[in-house]
């Protein structure tokens, strides 16, 4: 068994992904969904960097580092656009949730 810290960081990344995924489904408020997406992204990045630090060699594997750097920047761009759209939804319909999410108060 390979009980090294990096493996537990990878498991923590999976846990973060699961927490974000559940929150994405459970809440109707758009800002919460955007927060959940960011947490999911953070979990995926944690997993990638943990795998990169397990690689053999004097330095960690730089290719997953490059991917995560790209991922962080794309994630903030998507968050900015999603927030603008969410504000637009609220300006148009009056509520900060998607029109087909009926039921919940």
């Amino acid at each position, binding site marked *: 068994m390979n009980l090294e810290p990096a493996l537990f960081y990878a498991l923590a990344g999976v846990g973060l992904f699961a927490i974000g995924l559940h929150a994405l489904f459970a809440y109707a408020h758009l800002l919460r969904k955007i927060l959940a997406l960011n947490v999911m992204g953070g979990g995926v990045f944690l997993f990638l960097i943990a795998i990169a630090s397990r690689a053999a060699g004097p330095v960690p594997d*730089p290719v997953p580092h490059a991917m995560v750097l790209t991922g962080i920047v794309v994630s903030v761009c998507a968050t900015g656009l999603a927030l603008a759209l969410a504000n637009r939804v609220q300006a148009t319909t009056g509520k900060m949730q998607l029109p087909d999410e009926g039921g919940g108060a």
Partner: protein
Amino acid sequence: MSAPEPIADHARFTPARLVTLLLVVALAAALGWAVWSLPADSPGLTGQSLAQLPGSGVTNPVTAAVLNYRGYDTLLEIAVLLLAVLGVWSVAKAEPRADDAPASPVLTAFVRLALPVIILVAGYLLWIGSFAPGGAFQAGAVLAGGGVVLLLSGGGRAALAQEGWLRIGLVLGLAVFIAVAAGTMSVGGKLLEYPPQHAGTLILLIESAALISIALTLVALFVGGRPPGRSNRGLSEAGERKDGDES
């Protein structure tokens, strides 16, 4: 029924939500088992990356991976930055801060002290990225942080209203990157295959242009809308139609 309805979606233990929870837990268990059974030795790409480092133009393996080995990814990422600004500009208009209280004097004094240091740190991070942890993205993010704090303290709005320069700055990173890519193709190599003796210079050139674009993009995302101007009519705004558009 005059109070706005709160989106109180917490105490809803509906069956659907329970099923969702169980499914997510099952997915997490499956992923966890997959992670647990990863092989103990994973060579990764460290060996190849370090072997190619002398010809890549930089000494920091992460910068080499970002701008040389995976340069195409970075080119598309800068395009995504531009797309995000285009999307935000299509959806909303920047709101004037007319009704806000004046910025606190602590913030104003802090900005006056910190902004030159922030610019210096951004330049340092850009330069050191070739040899040590750093690079264009980190420097651009620090510069954007300085821009956000400047906007919060009330300054900088006049500079952001210079729409021509703003547009040039937003496109500059992508334009320089595409120019370098086209240049390497035109001298006979493949896309983004830098000649080894010029690789360091080309990478620094791309990073400098990208720094400006990244900082301006992140600040534009924070402003959250297109600058007000006669030529800016986005998607149909709810209710208003400006007819005084002399063109």
